[in-house]
């Protein structure tokens, strides 16, 4: 997805498209994040008004769910699975390697803003551990060498 800049008309359009659905908040947040790559801070009061809930409540929901971001991530997102199955197959080593390669910790972004590194608690690819996800694509049976290869393919090293 290509994150777009703040645009109130789009935010209002997205909110209007979903606000009548029962339990509309998560669908709205997902749609906004699909549009902008994150949930822009400025959308919180607009959502609150549309759903007749307080801004604090909307903010609280965004903060509760790890998937929702209030700030744009790096151009690419690399998620390393932290599930036990991946740990049993060298997942810890893979995570350490990723941190070293990118020069950042989990929840951090490489200095040039190109890649954000995140932990994820299970991708459900336990039959092909260890697994990771790069911009939504899943990769299994990973090794540090294969991660390097992937980063090269993506033009990141």
């Amino acid at each position, binding site marked *: 997805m290509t994150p777009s800049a703040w645009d109130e008309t789009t935010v209002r359009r997205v909110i209007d498209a979903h606000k009548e659905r029962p339990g509309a908040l*998560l669908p709205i947040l997902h749609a906004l994040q699909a549009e902008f790559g994150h949930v822009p801070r400025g959308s919180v009061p607009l959502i609150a008004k549309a759903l007749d809930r307080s801004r604090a409540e909307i903010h609280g929901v965004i903060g509760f769910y790890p998937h929702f971001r209030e700030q744009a991530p790096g151009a690419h997102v690399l998620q390393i699975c932290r*599930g*036990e199955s991946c740990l049993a197959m060298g997942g810890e080593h893979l995570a350490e390697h990723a941190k070293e390669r990118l020069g950042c910790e989990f929840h951090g972004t490489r200095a040039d803003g190109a890649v954000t590194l995140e932990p994820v608690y*299970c991708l459900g690819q336990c039959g092909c551990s260890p697994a990771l996800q790069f911009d939504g694509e899943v990769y299994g049976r990973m090794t540090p060498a294969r991660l390097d290869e992937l980063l090269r393919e993506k033009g990141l090293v």
Partner: protein
Amino acid sequence: MSVTVYVPRDSSALAVGAEALAEAIQREAAQRGVDLRLMRNGSRGLFWLEPLVEVATPAGRIAYGPVQAQDVPELFDAGFLAGGAHPTRLGPIEQIPYLQSQQRLTCARIGLIDPLDLDDYLAHGGYRGLHRALEHAPEEIVAAITASGLRGRGGAAFPAGIKWNTVREAPGNVKYVVANADEGDSGSFADRLIMEGDPFALIEGMTIAALAIGATQGYIYLRVEYPHAHATLERALATAYRAGYLGADVAGSGKRFDVEVRLGAGAYVCGEETALLESLEGKRGMVRSKPPLPALRGLFDQPTLVNNVLTLATVPYILAEGAEAYQRLGTARSRGTLPIQLAGNIARPGLIEQPFGISLREILYDYGGGSATGRPLRAVQVGGPLGAYVPAAHFDLPLDYEVFAAQGAVLGHGSIVAFDDTVDMARMARHALAFCAAESCGKCTPCRLGSTRGVEVMDDVLAGRQVETKVALLRDLGETMRLGSLCALGGMTPYPVLSALEHFPEDFTAAAARSRLG
């Protein structure tokens, strides 16, 4: 004559190169002028063989695996389209012992059919259960589920029939069916295999449940980490609507049932049914106090049936084949089959659906072939990140809800994660507590604070600081969390922690800390 070749579209197959493989096969066929029909099936769940290709021949479907894109020209040269010999040839898929020896009831169609082809689903017994259900009164459908002995496969193992009956009898004009597809347990992938490989089974199961309890609206609460399952479900739902299996007049019955997919947002605790309902309502996924039961006051305060994907996907079989066909399998109070998910450090990870009663040893060695690394297996974690660690000395335990409970362990959602002898069980105990700290909804103190204090205690143990005192503290903390937490997240985190401590005390000593620090 056209030859049919199957390359899975399952995300695990894609994760190891199935897409590039499918493209290579089509390219090669075009170059050679071969008339080839490429079918994208689900995964058979034999993951060490993925990407697994099957070719339809007069002698049945012949399997090759694992196959990569670069192997394709060679496969064509070897005549694989006629089942020709090649080092990756595995023979007829149905005769691979790993698969042949299983009794797949819930997962009978995964890998076999095109998951998005409703006609393929119908040709393999699909919607027979619904048609049978439509011939019966709601209480008779519930009676069949009760008689089958089916228990909730999400982890709690509550008798499904009792839950269904509670919702059926609950007063209320609006009732809901919610499929819990928030499969967050590490080591689990059976829900995903169903949703990606046989989505109509889930939809049919939900529809039968709706008829039984009198619901008109269903939700599939799906974790956002499953984008492939999401895409498959959306397409399957659209197909079911077009064919009249959902909507205002389900299969010509005059009854309405609608289903919608709702995405979670990365919170593990939303797999707990009351937190899930809060999330569906657009709130933080905070666990509710029970009572009231969700069956009586659930989604938007209305009577709600929440069942796991596997539970619902088993319902069509029970209706189609009869409760007795399901009930005759299994052990004491664990009836029917369990789709077991074998993962971690294991040579042959995969999906193994067998009647309850099979032992861990059979799963780990006969199916799994021992560790992937060739080293001895030291421990397995059964039932997800909140499940107990079971040492090698207990590998003869049969898979049975009550037998496991008596050992202080759980079957959970049926996942088994194997570890070889290089595993540091004190680190795994710390991992369990850190996971709980990250995922706690924060509503109750034992879980919210206990998990964080537990991580600190484990850091001391790992570093060899006041080990005996800290281990005593850890036990005490575990008891507090187990007895004092509101839901299974805080209440069961002590299972992996204390089982690691009980069975592997040698990893929780000052000496272990010294060797750890080198």
